[in-house]
C-alpha cells in the first residue's frame, strides 16, 4: 500500500476550480516530483494534503488512514511535514525558536533537542545564525530554515513546495543535493517544482500538473526524455 494515496481530488476557491480531479501516490522511500507552471494547482494540492485547504471532493489516505478533511494539527501529528512555498518562517522569532515550532506537535522534549542538533548538522549556517531573527536571514538561509523546521520531527513524508524558488543557482544546487540526502535518511519526499531538470534529476517518479489536472506521469528518467515535458518544462 502506498504511503500517500490521493484519489480524484477536487479543490475550489469559490468559483475557481484550482484542482480538478487528480490522483497520485507515493510509495514509502520514494522521491516524487510534481511539476507544473504557475497557477497549475500544485500548492493548493499540498495545502489540501496537510489540511490547510479543504477538498471539495476526493480522498486523501496517508499511512493507511483516511485523512481527508482532518484538521491540520491532527494530520501533522501523523507524520506529514510541509516546507511551504515562500518559506513562511516566523520573522520575529529566532532561528532556534523557528526550529522549535517545527517540533510543536512533539510531546517529548528530547525530540526537540535531537531535531535541533540534526538541523545544525545538516545546515551549519543555521547554527551560526541560531539567535538571529528569521526575518533578517537571506532568502537561501530562510529556505534552509524552512526545510530544517519541517524535518524537526523526522516526518514520514516531507513535502517541499518550490524549495528552489527565487534562489541563486549555487544555492539551488545545494538544496537539491540536500533532497537526496534527506531521502537517504529514509524520509519519503514529495517535491513540488518548476525547475524540472533538477527536480527530475533527484526523484524517482514525476507527475505533470496543468490547470488542475495531471496530464503526464511516469518515471523521472522517462519524463526527462519525454518530448512534451522537454518542450514545456525543459526548454526544448
Amino acid at each position, binding site marked *: 500500500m502506498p504511503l500517500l494515496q490521493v484519489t480524484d481530488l477536487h479543490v475550489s476557491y469559490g468559483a475557481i476550480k484550482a484542482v480538478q480531479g487528480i490522483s497520485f501516490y507515493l510509495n514509502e522511500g520514494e522521491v516524487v516530483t510534481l511539476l507544473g507552471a504557475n497557477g497549475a494547482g500544485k500548492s493548493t494540492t499540498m495545502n489540501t494534503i*496537510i*489540511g*490547510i485547504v479543504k477538498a471539495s471532493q476526493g480522498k486523501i489516505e496517508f499511512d493507511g488512514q483516511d485523512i481527508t478533511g482532518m*484538521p*491540520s*494539527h491532527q494530520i*501533522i*501529528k501523523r507524520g506529514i511535514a*510541509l516546507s*511551504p512555498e*515562500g*518559506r*513562511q*518562517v*516566523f*520573522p*520575529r*522569532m529566532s532561528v532556534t*525558536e523557528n526550529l*522549535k*515550532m*517545527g517540533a*510543536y*506537535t512533539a510531546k517529548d522534549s528530547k525530540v526537540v533537542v535531537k531535531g535541533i542538533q540534526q538541523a545544525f548538522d545538516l545546515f551549519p549556517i543555521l547554527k551560526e545564525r541560531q539567535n538571529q531573527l528569521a*526575518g533578517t536571514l537571506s532568502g537561501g538561509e530562510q529556505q534552509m530554515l524552512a526545510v530544517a*523546521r519541517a524535518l524537526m520531527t523526522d516526518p514520514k513524508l516531507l513535502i517541499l513546495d518550490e524549495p528552489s524558488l527565487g534562489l541563486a543557482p549555487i544555492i539551488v544546487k545545494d538544496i537539491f543535493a540536500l533532497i537526496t540526502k534527506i531521502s537517504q535518511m529514509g524520509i519519503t519526499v514529495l517535491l513540488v517544482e518548476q525547475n524540472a531538470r533538477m527536480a527530475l534529476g533527484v526523484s524517482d517518479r514525476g507527475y505533470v500538473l496543468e490547470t488542475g489536472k495531471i496530464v503526464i506521469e511516469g518515471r523521472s528518467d522517462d519524463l526527462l526524455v519525454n518530448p512534451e515535458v522537454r518542450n514545456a518544462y525543459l526548454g526544448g
Partner: protein
Amino acid sequence: MFLQQVFNGLTIGMTYALVAVGFSMVYGVLELANFANGAFYILAPYILFLMFSSMSWGLLPAIILAIIVTGVVGALMDHFILATIRKNKAPVSSSMVATLGVSTVITNGLIAIFGSDTKPIPSNVGIDSIHISTAILTGTQVLIIIAAVIIMVVLSLIVYKTKLGSAMRSIAQNGTAARMMGVNVNSIITITFFIGSACAAIAGAMTSMYYGSVDTMLYFSVSVKTFASVILGGIGSVPGAMLGGMLIGMLETFITGYVTSAYRDTISFMIIIVLLIVRPTGLLGQKKITKV
C-alpha cells in the same frame, strides 16, 4: 504631593497596563480590536458585588469567581461567535462588530439586572496602608501594584517562555504557517481570549475596589484608556501595552493633579490622535514585516 501623585498614577497605570496587555494579546493573535474587553472589565466588579454583598461570600473567593467567570465568558464568545465567523472566512471587521454586539449585550444586561446607579464595592482588603513622609499608599493600592506586577511577570513568562506563548506568537506572525506546524489555532485563540478577559476582570475588580464602587459608565472610560495604552505602546506588543498603560495612568494622574481635572478622559483621546499622526507604530511597536 508629588510622591502621592506617583503612587496614585502607578496604581491606575497598573490597572490600565493589565487591561491593555490582555487586549494586546488578543489583538496579536487575531488583529482584532476586541470591543467586548471593556465590558469584561465591568462584568467582574458586578459579579464581585453580587457574590460579596448579596451572597456574603468572602472577598477572595468572590474575586476568584469573578475572574474565572469573566475569562470563561470571553472564551465562550470566541468559541461560539468569533470562531464561527472565522470559519466562514468573513473579514476581521465582522468579528469586531460581533464583539461590539457582545459588549452591548453585557452592559445592557448589567443595567437591566443591577440598575444604572452606582454599586458599592468593598475597598478594605485587609492590608495596612504604608506612610512615606506625607504620602500614603493604601492597602488597596499595595494590593493592586503587587498583584499587577506579579500577573504581568507571569504573562510575560507565558508569552515568551512557554509553548503556549510560542503558539500565540507564531499565530501573530504567520497564522497559516502556525497551522502548518500543527498549532491548533482555534483553541489557542480561545485560550488567549480567556487570558485577555481574565486580565480585564482582574483590572476591573481591583479598580472598583480602589474606587469603592462600580457603574456601567466605566465601560467607556476604560475602553478609551485601553486603546490609548496600546496605541501609545505599540499595537500588538505586550511590553508596549504594559508601558503604554503605565504612561497613560501617570499622565492622567499628573495632569489631573497639577493642571485640571476637567479633561481627565480627554487626555487619552488627545494622546491617541497625536500619536496616530506622529508615530503610528507606538513606542515599542514594530513595523509590520510583510509576509512573502
